[in-house]
């Protein structure tokens, strides 16, 4: 009996689930939410700090996109966020709530840093390869452990993956402190210019160090962004076009249906979590080798959690994630630029930047409610008589 309708006294407002919604309508609602957020923040900032909305938004835009010093950091940070969101996509599509991307990335970064520091005698191409491989394995293991426990014992993956974050962070802290020794900070790994044979070993830029590096392809940032872009495209194809992607979607929809279809649910859970963890690990490798050239437990920077929002807002579409990642980072960097520009003149505190980002996210995520549900008002005259 699917059409059971409970008839009670009808309230003034009631909320019903939409069966389906046209794509243009959904985008119109999202656009409305975005404009709503713009208006709300403009009013808020104008009333409290007296900053003119047009100044506010032009400062935000410039701080996020205009000029090399602003555009590149935005894109780099967005790429990192995108990479983690892409890693989460298959797990979330399977309804496996992996909130351990932070730990999986740290595990990968740790493995990369370890190889980089301990085996710096290898030729650089080999060193990079080994770092990459170990990162993928470490991240994969960090994803595998909660998956095995989930598959075999039915443990709660949310708590498990969350706890794995702290374990990874503490391992990183441990090595950080050992490697740092008596110094106040670790500094760059293989960063001592006097140790010529290992100087910048394990860095991508080792290949062109000391030579003309102003061309676009001799930039670690470029490769960081390009490789992550490629990963996003590959993941899109994997989820949409391959049999494994299909299996993930079936398991995510109904495990009973998966069993009925002859899919081994446990196998899919474990395989998918290895992939999810491995991509986080790979992100850790690239961040160490192309970006930070060092390690600390702060290297993931909370992106493992922000990426959850990105993945959800994109509805697991990894191409849409690219746009959403840029948006989120642009909001962060733009708001920070506003804080920098106005903190002395108007007393605009830098923490207000976080409020601006949060308001935007609230509006946009909140709009999903109006996409999924319809608000009905009671029509008193048209009240049905049963």
């Amino acid at each position: 009996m699917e059409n059971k309708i409970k008839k009670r006294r009808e309230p003034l407002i009631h909320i019903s689930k939409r069966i389906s919604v046209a794509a243009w309508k959904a985008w119109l609602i999202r656009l409305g939410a975005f404009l709503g957020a713009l208006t709300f923040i403009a009013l808020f900032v104008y009333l409290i700090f007296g900053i003119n909305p047009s100044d506010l938004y032009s400062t935000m835009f410039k701080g996020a996109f205009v000029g090399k010093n602003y555009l590149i950091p935005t894109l780099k940070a967005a790429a990192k966020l995108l990479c983690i969101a892409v890693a989460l996509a298959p797990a979330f599509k399977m309804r496996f709530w992996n909130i351990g991307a932070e730990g999986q990335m740290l595990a990968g970064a740790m493995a990369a840093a370890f190889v980089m520091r301990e085996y710096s005698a290898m030729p650089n191409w080999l060193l990079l390869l080994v770092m990459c491989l170990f990162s993928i394995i470490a991240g994969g293991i960090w994803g595998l452990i909660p998956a095995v426990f989930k598959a075999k014992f039915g443990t709660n993956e949310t708590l498990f993956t969350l706890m794995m974050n702290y374990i990874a962070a503490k391992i990183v802290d441990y090595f950080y402190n050992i490697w740092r020794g008596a110094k106040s900070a670790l500094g760059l790994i293989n960063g001592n210019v006097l140790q010529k044979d290992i100087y910048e070993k394990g860095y991508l830029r080792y290949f062109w160090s000391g030579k003309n590096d102003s061309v676009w392809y001799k930039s670690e940032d470029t490769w960081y962004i390009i490789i992550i872009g490629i990963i996003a495209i590959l993941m899109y194809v994997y989820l949409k076009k391959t049999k494994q992607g299909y299996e993930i979607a079936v398991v995510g929809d109904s495990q009973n249906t998966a069993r009925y279809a002859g899919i081994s649910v446990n196998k899919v859970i474990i395989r998918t979590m290895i992939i999810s963890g491995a991509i986080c690990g790979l992100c850790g490798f690239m961040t160490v080798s192309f970006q930070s050239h060092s390690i600390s437990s702060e290297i993931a920077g909370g992106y493992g959690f922000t990426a959850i929002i990105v993945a959800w807002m994109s509805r697991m579409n990894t191409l849409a994630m690219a746009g959403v990642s840029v948006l989120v980072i642009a909001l962060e960097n733009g708001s920070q630029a506003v804080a920098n520009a106005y903190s002395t003149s108007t007393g605009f505190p830098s923490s207000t930047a976080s409020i601006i980002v949060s308001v935007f996210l609230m509006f946009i995520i909140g709009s999903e409610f109006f996409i999924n549900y319809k608000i009905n008002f009671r029509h008193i005259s048209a009240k049905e008589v049963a």
Partner: protein
Amino acid sequence: MSDIPAAIEFKNITKTFGSITANSDISFEIRRGEILSLLGENGSGKTTLMNMLSGIYYPDSGKIYINGNSVSIKSPKDAYKLGIGMIHQHFKLIDVFTVTENVVLGLPGKIGLDLKTARDRVTEICKKYGFELNPDQKVYDMNVSQKQTLEIVKLLYRKADILILDEPTAVLTPQETENLFKVIRNMRDDGKSIIIITHKLHEVLAVSDRVAILRKGEYIATVNTGEATELSLTEMMVGKKVILNIDRPEPLNPVKRIEVQGLSVVNAEGIKTLDDISFELYGGEILGIAGISGCGQKELLEAIAGLQKTGPGSSIKFHPTDDIKDVKSLIGKTPKEIRNYGIALSFVPEDRLGMGLVGSMGMPENMMLKTYNEDNSIFLNLKNPVKSAEEIKNTLEVATPSLNTPVRTLSGGNIQKVLVGREISSVPAVLMTAYAVRGLDINTSYMIYDLINEQKKRGVAVIFVGEDLDVLLAISDRILVLCGGKSNGIVDARTTTKEKVGLMMTTLNNVGGSQDGK
């Protein structure tokens, strides 16, 4: 009866859900200090009626009187205030709490919790009615019977005068059942009114004072138990035979296809949901499965499909066809392994979206659910699935905005067409359907019957699990009757009567249970 008002009186109660009338103009009463059995087939409206009494539903029209006063029960809270309590089949207890803690849970009161007084009252109630319950025991340490006792104590603690028990004996052993009946009688003698929803006729006769019978949403009669027999009750419950115009071709040279021997299934709670089932299934015939819902139908089909762990000594054998040369055992095989044998086994499960289909996907992706992995490519091939989706859409007239519309958003009938269509298009050797026409309108139902009959003519061995006895008697060649997870025999659907099948569904090992229709 004297002029003391009845504990409960239903007057012209009607309740509809969309186009389905669950209760139609029901009027009867329950007296104080009596045990009343509410009897009826699946879908006869018993649960709906009781839900209105316990405040889960509200009647569309009609009135309920409690002790002679007209009342309006709008929520479970109202029911509680009127002293009405219901015990559901699935207990609502907190495992890590003790008996006393569970009893006081949810009661209004001050911030401070006086567990000691509560404990004393629980002990007192137990003593009064003869319950054996330790007030300090944790629920996770208790067996099913004790949990049920706790549910009853919970209601008595809340001073309920009217107790509704929904199939209370389904999970009990005969001895526990006897104990339950004893305390029920004690409660009756204390002046409480007890309503028992049950399908088991011998229990109805053993425990109740009167029996009220519902059929297809209508009230039939209330009889004194002393004047009733199992046969008279069954007749009232199933009603007169309705002649349906469903085709039933004679089986053409039937060959043995599946042989089930001593099949048993134990569920996660350790209860035997299937017990020692044996039967043979022939190609070209339809074997109907009759039984009250939850009597092992689901487990039986899933065991054959490779989705249920079977108990020791079970045997399911697939007999050779043109393509498969030797006998294959299906025990312990996964659906994939069965398919790899080359056995085309089609299964339309009861839970369409939860097991048969992927609700969030469109028709083509659902078409390839069992076949997506047939080639060696790592990529999906959507060409054939799209073609078969189009075919099914056209031949079965599936109403869908587009092929890619998520099947979840289609109507129940169309979802069923997609599922049945896919299962039949795979040219099966065995077709199993569970409640194939549940919730469908007449036209769609007949379309499904025709599809199943076509498969029968093709020589497919069909298992048809149904709930409407008229349909089962009209479409099946033979009917296997399940009763509480046990086989109660196989009857010839052409010669048997509705009463006989109804009786076999409700009473184990009764008249004519053993004659094989083959």
